């Protein structure tokens, strides 16, 4: 027992002494529960006045004292030891101690039977002999009354019985008499302690609470420490300090290290680092609290459950079939060849990992020696094989193709070669279809120009010119009929035969007027010579224009829509060789003083006074009326080979020797709206159909590609370009394929001139 206990006891004793005024005798006489202090006080009471004890005649004082002193003996002795340490407290305690001393002496007398020291008969030495314990009622020192010994049982078991249990000797403890309600009431009136009494279950009677129990209740009510003996404010015990308790000797003899008395440089540096950081504001000592500093809480169950599918279960092993039976049907048994084959195949390649075998009885089946191996491999399967649901990107390649209308819905367009006209042993460079769509002229490199019907293909007339035919073109006018053939440095205007007389006269009047217009003031290097109308015939050209010498073979003839102007490009060197000839005035002019780059192609705009000039890489649009450059189109083609403008005039297609075909929306941009690279060789010629929404491109790969090209008046709608058909039929000759294509006006037919000498008509 430690010190605190001592004080506790002394305090209680003070309380006990104060309570002496109350009639404690009655209290203690009823006391059944054995408590230390009640025993103490009871013992005091015993000693103070005996009259009270007399009320219990059957209990003799000896047994009483014995019963009283049985438990507190230890504590009393402890207290005594404690008191030894600090005894001088005050006088009351002394008196208490005195009384305790009495108790102790009493204990010495009574608690344990007095051992007599006798001389042993056997050993002859002294021995202590205790008196024998008499097994009578008094020998039980546990209680003075007849306590109920039924234990912790539900007491209603005894409700029907006259007794409430048994004492230690098996005698019934009778139920104490209980008055009726009126008695109880009177008792509460009479007895001032009745409000502090409680029903004792064991005794089946009301017992007043002891002062300690009341104190306990009070403490609990006032939220104090329930244990009255516990002192939270104990004085500390100075074990090592104080006088005479100083430690004099050091624990170690080592000299003091330097760091004990020299301030640490490193520490200083570290501190200074922090100080500097604070000064520079890198560390904020008192960081202002922000919203993000607050603890954030999440309602973790509020989230939607994960949409991920549960992990895939492992595939189940296949169920055994008849073949795995110990007694399979005959047809499952392998033949010799099957057995041999099975044994020869690799283990991994076998379809089955066993051979069916037949046993007449199940007990004859041997142990399966592959069992462990199979289990193991199965475990490996389950363990190592990843089971992920792979979301494989399944793209149907067809779905990537943009939705285009079916070519069948865009009929008519040329699909087959109806006929072909052969120019023997030469290349047909140019071909042209008359504006009424009935006649074709085709010119080859040996100077032959033949005129033939579109649909029959019979050559009706043939002209022979000197040198190659570079280009030829029908006049787009419908009131006059003639065409222009370009040979070396010369343009020939030819009237085809079998014209109705009015048309013939009109044509002659246009090409060879009776009275020539006045010659221009400045002499032009271009000479116009014509045969008089009377002597003209379809055999010879009625009008010839001599281009300047050394201008070379004209590559292209471009007519203006109205058929009065035509432009030619000469392939020779010098100032590009672009000439614009006016038939009515019989006058030629070079529109460009100097041209950047070699001019490849020219075109008249169908409706506006615009002029397209294609150099090797760019297409420039000039306004001829205002004489200025409007726009430069960048096709992204290294070498432009062909060009055509849509009949409405807002769209331009440009083909290049680098296989590209560019579609320009002139309203949209300088850059191509669409680049089509479908040819495997250089694009040679492109042409828009004058009336049908079609255009075609021909290439050195010998193919012609037909496209549907629908142009909308609505500026917001993009042109619809649908590839329709690839026409093959021309032979590639010395790397050259289809050199020129022309649509037949009014019909969805195409005329193509090939390097193999064939001019083909493709019909729908």
């Amino acid at each position, binding site marked *: 027992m430690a010190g605190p206990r001592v004080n506790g006891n002394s305090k209680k004793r003070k309380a006990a002494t104060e309570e002496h005024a109350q009639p404690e005798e009655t209290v203690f006489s009823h006391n059944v529960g054995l408590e230390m202090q009640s025993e103490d006080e009871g013992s005091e009471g015993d000693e103070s006045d005996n009259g009270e004890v007399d009320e219990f005649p059957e209990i003799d004082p000896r047994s009483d004292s014995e019963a009283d002193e049985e438990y507190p003996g230890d504590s009393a002795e402890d207290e005594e030891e404690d008191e030894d340490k600090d005894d001088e407290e005050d006088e009351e305690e002394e008196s208490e101690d005195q009384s305790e001393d009495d108790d102790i002496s009493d204990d010495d007398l009574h608690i344990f039977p007095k051992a007599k020291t006798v001389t042993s008969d056997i050993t002859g030495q002294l021995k202590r002999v205790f008196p024998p314990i008499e097994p009578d009622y008094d020998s039980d020192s546990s209680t003075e009354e007849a306590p109920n010994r039924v234990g912790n049982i539900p007491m209603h078991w005894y409700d029907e019985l006259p007794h409430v249990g048994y004492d230690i000797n098996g005698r019934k403890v009778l139920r104490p008499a209980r008055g009726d309600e009126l008695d109880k009431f009177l008792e509460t009136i009479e007895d001032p302690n009745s409000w502090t009494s409680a029903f004792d279950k064991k005794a089946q009677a009301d017992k007043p609470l002891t002062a300690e129990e009341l104190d306990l209740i009070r403490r609990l009510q006032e939220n104090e420490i329930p244990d009255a003996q516990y002192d939270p404010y104990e004085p500390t015990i100075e074990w090592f300090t104080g006088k005479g308790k100083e430690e004099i000797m050091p624990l170690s003899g080592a000299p003091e290290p330097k760091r004990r008395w020299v301030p640490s440089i490193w520490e200083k540096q570290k501190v200074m680092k922090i100080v500097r950081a604070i000064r520079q504001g890198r560390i904020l000592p008192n960081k202002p609290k922000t919203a993000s500093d607050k603890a954030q809480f999440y309602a973790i169950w509020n989230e939607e459950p994960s949409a991920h599918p549960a992990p895939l279960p492992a595939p189940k092993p296949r169920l055994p079939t008849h073949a795995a039976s110990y007694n399979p049907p005959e047809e499952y048994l392998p033949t010799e060849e099957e057995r041999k084959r099975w044994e020869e195949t690799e283990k991994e390649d076998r379809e089955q990992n066993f051979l069916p075998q037949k046993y007449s009885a199940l007990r004859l089946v041997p142990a399966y020696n592959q069992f462990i191996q199979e289990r193991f491999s199965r475990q490996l399967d389950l363990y190592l094989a990843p089971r992920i649901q792979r979301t494989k990107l399944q793209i149907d390649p067809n779905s990537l193709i943009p939705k285009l209308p079916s070519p069948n819905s865009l009929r008519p367009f040329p699909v087959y070669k109806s006929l072909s006209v052969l120019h023997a042993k030469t290349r047909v460079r140019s071909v042209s279809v008359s504006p009424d769509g*009935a006649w074709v002229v085709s010119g080859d490199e040996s100077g032959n120009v033949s005129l033939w019907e579109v649909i029959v293909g019979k050559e009706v007339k043939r002209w022979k010119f000197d040198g190659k035919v570079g280009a030829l073109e029908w006049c787009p006018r419908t009131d006059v009929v003639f065409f222009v053939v370009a040979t070396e440095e010369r343009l020939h205007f030819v009237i085809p*035969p079998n014209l109705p007389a009015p048309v013939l006269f009109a044509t002659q009047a246009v090409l060879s007027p009776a009275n020539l217009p006045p010659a221009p003031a400045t002499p032009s290097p271009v000479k116009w010579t014509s045969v008089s109308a009377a002597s003209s015939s379809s055999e010879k050209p009625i009008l010839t224009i001599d281009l300047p010498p050394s201008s070379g073979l004209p590559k292209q003839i471009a007519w203006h829509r109205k058929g009065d102007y035509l432009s030619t490009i000469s392939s020779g060197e010098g100032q590009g060789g672009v000439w614009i000839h006016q038939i009515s005035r019989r006058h030629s002019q070079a529109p460009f003083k100097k041209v950047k780059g070699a001019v490849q192609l020219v075109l008249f705009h169908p409706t506006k006074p615009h002029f397209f000039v294609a150099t090797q890489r760019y297409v420039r649009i000039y306004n001829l009326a205002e004489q200025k450059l409007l726009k430069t189109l960048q096709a992204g083609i290294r070498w432009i080979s062909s060009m055509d403008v849509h009949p409405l005039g807002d769209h331009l297609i440009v083909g290049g020797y680098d296989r590209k075909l560019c579609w320009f929306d002139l309203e949209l941009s300088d850059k191509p709206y669409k680049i089509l690279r479908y040819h495997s060789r250089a694009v040679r010629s492109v042409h828009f159909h004058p009336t049908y929404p079609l255009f075609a491109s021909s290439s050195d790969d010998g193919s012609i590609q037909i496209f549907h090209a629908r142009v909308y008046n609505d500026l917001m709608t993009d042109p619809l370009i649908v590839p329709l058909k690839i026409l093959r039929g021309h032979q590639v000759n010395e790397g050259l394929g289809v050199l020129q294509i022309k649509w037949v006006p009014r019909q969805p037919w195409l005329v193509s001139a090939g390097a193999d000498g064939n001019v083909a008509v493709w*019909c729908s």
Partner: protein
Amino acid sequence: MIPASWKRYQLSQLVNKALSLPKPIPFDFLVRGEILRTTLGEWCAEKGIGEEETLEIEYFESIMPPQRMSSLPHEDWVSSVSSRLSSHFLTASYDGQLRVFDYSQKLLRTVPLHDAPTTSLAIIPSDLAGFAENTHLIASASHDLTAHLTKLSLSDSSDLPSHQILASLHLHTAPLSSISANTSGKHLLTASWDGLIGLWDTLVPSSDEVPLEEPQGGERKKRRKLGDSENSKPKRKAPLNVLKSHTARVSRALFAPSGNQAYSTGFDSTIRTWDVENGVCLSTITASAKPFLDLALTPSGTSVLAASTDRTVSQYDIRAPESAATPSSATFMHSGTPSCIAVPASGSEHQFMTGAYDGVVRLWDLRSTKGAVTSFKVWEAKGGGKVLSLDWGNGVAVIGGEGGVEVWKANQGDRSVVSSN
């Protein structure tokens, strides 16, 4: 019940027995618009037809494979042939000449009709007064915008000139594509590229009806030609009527057998029926995107066959009331552009012949649209060529075109009825 393993031969024997013909005739058989080439069982298996079903089988007299009889060489392409003149062949060529051959391939006459290519010729069936024996009236159309009426004498007597151009027909402003006469020989129809159809009578006028146009200072000036009319000069003749309705080239115009109506077709994908007397278009059959190249009446006279540049020959019912978009009742597919159709003047009413630019002449049966009954290639020795004209009658087919003229023997099958399985 007929065994499924039977082929044409067994069926033909059966029909011969049933008809108890004194001399066996080979027959061909049509099953559901298709000529039977295999056994019946195979045919059923191919079409997925159960053998329990009843099949209607039509038979017609087999057509012997056509045989080439002779070749009539020409210097230029032959644009039109005719075998309507008994025991003679007439050919019109792109060199403007009319040639007359007899059956022994002998060139009897060479008549220079036009300076420009001749596109079409027609024999006017007439017994006109003043015409001697063996004298015929020939109408020819040409690229020179005129058609000519020519008197052709085939008699050997030398007192008469062998030919005389009686009249030139002036209407068109574009080359003519066809000319045809009615059965009575009174009227002519010319079709031209300018979309006009001219109706003419065959009377030779005594004087020019149309003034000659001369160039005069670039203006058209009508001036009556001074009137020393020579007999040798053809008279200039004006049309009776002009049928205007086509919007593009008219490729063929021909009379109905009755003579009151005419049919025409052209590049505007229409087939028009005309009232000849009033010059009114009675009805129009409009196909879509089918420029027609040739037209022929079927022997029954109830429908027309039209060859189109989309490699089809289509059959249209002309009895149908005037309505838009009459669908074709049958379509015969070709591998080349069909250029001409020939229907025999008499005999079979279901068969016709077509010539195409691929040099193949096909013989069709109207009931069998799936394939030609037979076909043969002309000018094989020259490597083929376009067939431009075709005439078929009396078991002889005359084919004119790029390689000249070839004569083939091609019999017509005869009529038949139905047997069933």
